[in-house]
């Protein structure tokens, strides 16, 4: 009757042994391959440092002007440009410029990485139902697994610093990119695809001329989601040594500095809104040909 009220468990010694063996195995793996794996990520490290230096070394008026130009090209809306410039000016006035630039550079690198990894996987999934049924559960795990859990092996392998931070952020932020690329390509009108076939398109021509352009608005929504999710990881990434707006927030939590936390938190919100408005405006401008409908 005992086992009815209390769940029968594995015997404690076996369980301890199991955990110990896995831990030791992974530690051995880390010792054996840690260095070579770190070397693999060296180019990423240089890319990160380059992006950060670029933003920090550029005088602030130039950065703000550049953001204004990008916002204008993407949205063609003075309102969005003015909003972006004002947000950046306020952030700078509150002495958070350097941290903001570090965060922006990291988000930029993470987004580029997520696009480079995500779109090909999404295309692959759209083409093969088998691949889709394999990748989907993996994405589910990536999105629901608490990020602290996969920070542990990443830190064990690569130590603390920028690169493990970026890996953790990308693991968390890449699923919407993959999912929306897959969805966008699968939703392309079957009639148009048939027409492309009838004219003798090769599968690469079909992808380039029909599937990617028609999926682009959905893919842009994926980029937007990826950026937002990357930003939401900034504080967690700061726990393993990623510099930027996350670190003051971490300090604020540890020391109960209310104002410091709020200011830096609002700065994260500010750049999130800038990224969001610019990428959304660009996405909807891509759909312009759909809007003007024959009456």
């Amino acid at each position, binding site marked *: 009757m005992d086992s009815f009220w209390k769940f029968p468990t594995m015997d404690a010694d076996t369980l301890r042994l199991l955990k110990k063996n896995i831990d030791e195995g992974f530690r051995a793996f880390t010792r054996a391959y840690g260095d070579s794996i770190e070397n693999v990520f060296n180019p990423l490290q240089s890319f990160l440092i380059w992006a950060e230096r670029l933003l920090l070394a550029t005088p602030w008026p130039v950065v703000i002007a550049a953001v204004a130009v990008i916002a204008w090209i993407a949205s063609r809306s003075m309102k969005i440009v003015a909003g972006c410039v004002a947000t950046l000016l306020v952030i700078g006035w509150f002495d958070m410029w350097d941290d903001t630039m570090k965060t922006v550079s990291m988000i930029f690198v993470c987004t580029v990485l997520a696009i480079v990894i995500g779109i090909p996987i999404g295309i692959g999934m759209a083409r093969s139902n088998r691949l889709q049924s394999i990748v989907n559960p993996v994405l589910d795990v990536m999105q629901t697994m608490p990020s602290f859990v996969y920070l542990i092996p990443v830190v064990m392998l690569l130590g603390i610093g920028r690169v493990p931070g970026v890996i953790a952020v990308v693991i968390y932020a890449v699923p919407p990119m993959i999912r929306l690329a897959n969805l966008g390509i699968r939703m392309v*009108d079957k*009639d*148009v695809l*048939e*027409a492309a*076939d*009838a*004219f*003798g*398109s*090769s599968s690469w*021509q079909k992808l380039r*001329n*029909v599937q990617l*352009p*028609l999926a682009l608005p959905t893919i842009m929504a994926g980029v937007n989601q990826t950026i937002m999710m990357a930003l939401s990881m900034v504080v967690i990434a700061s726990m393993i040594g990623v510099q930027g707006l996350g670190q003051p927030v971490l300090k604020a939590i540890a020391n109960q500095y209310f104002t410091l936390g709020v200011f830096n938190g609002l700065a994260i919100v500010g750049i999130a809104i800038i990224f969001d408005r610019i990428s959304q405006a660009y996405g909807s401008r891509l759909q312009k*040909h*759909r*809007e*003007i*409908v*024959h009456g």
Partner: protein
Amino acid sequence: MAEANQPGIDVRNLWKVFGPNAKAMVPLLKQGLSKAELNGRHGHVLGLRNVNITMPAGAIQVIMGLSGSGKSTLIRHINRLVDPTAGEILVGDEDVVKMGVHELREFRRHKTAMVFQKFALLPHRNVLENVVYGLEIQGVPRRRQVEAAIRWIDRVGLAGFEKHYPNQLSGGMQQRVGLARALANDAPILLMDEAFSALDPLIRTDMQTVLLDIQKEIRKTIVFITHDLDEALRLGDRIAILRDGEVVQQGTSQDIVLRPADDYVKAFVKEVSRGRVVYVEAVMAPFRPADRSLATVPRQTTLDAAANVLMQHCCEHLTVMDEAGTPVGQISLRQLLRAIVTPADDIG
């Protein structure tokens, strides 16, 4: 551009069964298994049953049938958007069914062009970029792509709309783009899958006229699918009528209207305005020199047109002439009327 040596299309013993074990079903069907039995007992769907059609080169072959008759399946066999279960499709002396992936792609690029019921234009490309699509896929230099596209856009009456997007155009204009896109490809075979069915009646007639005008110049082998007998009779040099995946009759418009093969075809033909289809030669009386009239018509004049001529001349008879100008028959107003009005025993 009018070449006489366009390839004809020869569809031979073509079977199409949809289902996991299609190949095994064909022998059973050959032994007389019916469509309902195939579906009920074996869970397969019959698409086409032993279709044989010889489509002449440089002419318009219409394939007519109601929805579910297999006509869209049939036209998709010609460029193998659908793979047959058994049979041959000969284009010139090539068998489309035996082509490999690469060969098939080249065949689709250079030998066929297709126009679709729902237009299937690329929504993110403007009219010009849509029309160059086939040539772009072929790898033709950009300058020649644009030249051909501009010429055909102009020919279908869309000059000035090159920079418009499909969404900005009406259905009729979108299908003109579809037609220009297919013609710009300059393939000898033009496949038109219910190309005008989605259009308003007036615009449809308009597009038929455009097609017939263009065909006079280009003389391509056109396969035209429709569910509308009036359209079939107006466009088709030859017509095949499909029912439940089987050809029930094929022939010229005269054959179909004057000698419907069975009740199914008869039911269709009853709704047709015969005056616009039937030629006087089919109903004329033998020529009697005594009745010779000054009003003459060529023998391939429709009854409507002949009645018009007769009315303008107020005489008893029309003399029907052959191509050489010798009288071959005569026809009176009474005979004309009787032929135009549907015979009484066919009503009700």
